[in-house]
C-alpha cells in the first residue's frame, strides 16, 4: 500500500513541482542569454530586458525553494487534516504508511530541487568566461578531492559519502516531522486549529533549543566529556569523522522519532476533522 500511496503522492505533488522545475530551467536559459548577449549591447531596452531576466532567474530559484517547503507542509495539512482527510484517513492503510509516504516524497522533492537549482546555475553560467573559469576551478578542486578520497581513503570516502546522504535524508525527515507534529497537535483542538498549530510549532522549537542548550551545559565536565577528551589521543582523524557523523545521525533520528511518535499519536487518537 505504501507504493500506491507514493504513486498518488508523486502525482499530486508533481503537478506543482515539475512545472516549477521547468520554469527554473527556462529562466536559467534566459539568464544565460542575458549575461552573454543582452547586457553587453548598447541598446537600453535590451539592457533592461537582460536585467529583468536575471531577476526572474533569482526569483525562480527562491520560489522553487519556498515551494518545495510549502508543498511539504500543504500536502500534509490539506490531504490529511482538511476535507481530503475524510477520504485519506479511511483508506485501508495505516497512519505510519501515510506519514512515510509524505516523508519520502518530500525528501525526493527537496533533493530534486537542489539538483535542478545546481543544473540551472550550470546552464546560466555556461559559456561565460569568468564563471566558466570559476566552475572549472571548482570542478578541479572536487576532482582532486575525489582522487584523494579514492586513493588514500577509498572505503572511508565512500562510507563518509553514504553517511552524509543518510544524514541529509534523516535531517530532512526530522524537519518535516517537526511541521507534521505541530499540525497534528494543533488540529486536535476543536477550534482555531491553524493558530494552535503555529503556536505548537514555536513551542516545540523553543523546547528543542532549550533542551539542546541545557544538554550541552549539563554534559560539560561530566564522564562523557572526559571520555571524549580521553579519546582525542587514541582515535584517528577519520575515525573521529565517522563517529561525529554517526552521532549526528543518531541525534537526528532521536529528534525525528519524538515528532514521529507525536504525529502518529495525534493522528490515531486525537484526530478531529472539521
Amino acid at each position, binding site marked *: *500500500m505504501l507504493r*500506491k500511496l507514493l*504513486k*498518488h503522492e508523486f*502525482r*499530486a505533488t508533481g*503537478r506543482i513541482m515539475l512545472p516549477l522545475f521547468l520554469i527554473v530551467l527556462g529562466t536559467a536559459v534566459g539568464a544565460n542569454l542575458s549575461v552573454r548577449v543582452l547586457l553587453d549591447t548598447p541598446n537600453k531596452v535590451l539592457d533592461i530586458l537582460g536585467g529583468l531576466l536575471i531577476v526572474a532567474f533569482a526569483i525562480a530559484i527562491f520560489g522553487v525553494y519556498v515551494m518545495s517547503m510549502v508543498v511539504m507542509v500543504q500536502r500534509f495539512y490539506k*490531504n490529511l487534516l482538511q*476535507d*481530503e*482527510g*475524510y*477520504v485519506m*484517513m*479511511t*483508506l*485501508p*492503510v*495505516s497512519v505510519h504508511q501515510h506519514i512515510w509516504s509524505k516523508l519520502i516524497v518530500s525528501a525526493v522533492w527537496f533533493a530534486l530541487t537542489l539538483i535542478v537549482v545546481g543544473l540551472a546555475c550550470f546552464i546560466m553560467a555556461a559559456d561565460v568566461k569568468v564563471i566558466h573559469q570559476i566552475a572549472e576551478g571548482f570542478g578541479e578542486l572536487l576532482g582532486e578531492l575525489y582522487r584523494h578520497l579514492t586513493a588514500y581513503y577509498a572505503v572511508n570516502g565512500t562510507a563518509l559519502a553514504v553517511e552524509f546522504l543518510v544524514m541529509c535524508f534523516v535531517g530532512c525527515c526530522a524537519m518535516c516531522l517537526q511541521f507534521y507534529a505541530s499540525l497534528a497537535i494543533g488540529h486536535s483542538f*476543536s477550534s482555531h486549529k491553524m493558530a494552535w498549530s503555529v503556536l505548537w510549532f514555536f513551542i516545540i522549537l523553543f523546547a528543542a533549543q532549550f533542551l539542546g542548550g541545557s544538554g550541552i551545559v549539563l554534559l560539560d565536565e561530566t564522564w562523557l566529556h572526559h571520555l571524549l577528551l580521553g579519546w582525542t589521543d587514541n582515535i584517528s582523524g577519520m575515525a573521529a569523522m565517522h563517529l561525529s557523523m554517526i552521532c549526528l545521525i543518531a541525534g537526528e533520528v532521536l529528534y525525528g522519532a519524538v515528532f514521529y511518535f507525536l504525529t502518529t499519536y495525534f493522528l*490515531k*487518537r*486525537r*484526530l*478531529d*476533522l472539521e
Partner: protein
Amino acid sequence: MAVLECKGLSKRYGHTQALDRVDLAVEPGRIVGLLGPNGSGKTTLIKLANGLLTPSEGELLVCGMKPGKETHALVSYLPERTSIPLWMTAGQLLDFYEDFYKDFRRDAAEEMLAHLNISPKQRIKQMSKGTREKVQLIVVMSRAAKLYLLDEPIGGVDPATRDYILSTIIGNYDPEAAVVISTHLISDVEKVLDDVIFINQGRVMLQSSVDQIREEKGMSVDELFREVFKC
C-alpha cells in the same frame, strides 16, 4: 453477526456529550435510516465507525473488529461534505479507488459516469457542486462493501438529484451488505428504508423496522419522527 454494533458507546467533546451510552446493532442486508435532528450525534456515530474519532467510553465494532485499516477495506463511506481531491480528473479518481480498494467495480463506476455525461478527463474542480457530490457517490457506491455509511447523502441537493442519489444507492449496493443512511430529510428516504434508528441528543430514542412502525403506530416514519421530535 451484526455488521455494525455499538455497546455502551459514548463520545464527549470537552464538556459536550455527543453520544451517550448508545447500544445498537445493524444486521447485513438491511437499509437503515439513522434519523435525527441537526446536532443529534449522527455524524459523530458515523465518524466513530470510520475510525475518524475514538470513543470516550464503550465499544464500536464493524464486522466484529474495532475500526482500523482492516475495517476500512470493508466499509464504504460517504462523508457529509465533498472530500474527493478536487485536482484530480474523474478518471484519476477511479484509478485512485481501484488502487486502494479490491472491491472497487470500475466498470460500474464508468457506466454511471457515462450515464451522467461526465467525461473521465474532466477535472473535479471544474464540476458543479451537485456533480461533484454525484461523482463522490458514484465511487462510494461502486464498491462491493460489507457496510455503506452514507452521511447526509441527499442534504443540500435538488429533488431531482435526490432521486438520482437514492436510485443509485438502491441499484448498486450489495444485497448482502448493510446500508446506513444518516439524514433529517425523512420523507425523501422513507421509501427505501427497512429499519430506522431515531437519535436525539446523543441517545437512541427508537430502533425499529419501518413495517413495524406502520403496523403498530399506524403512521409513516416521517409522521412518527415529527411526533417524537416535536419542538
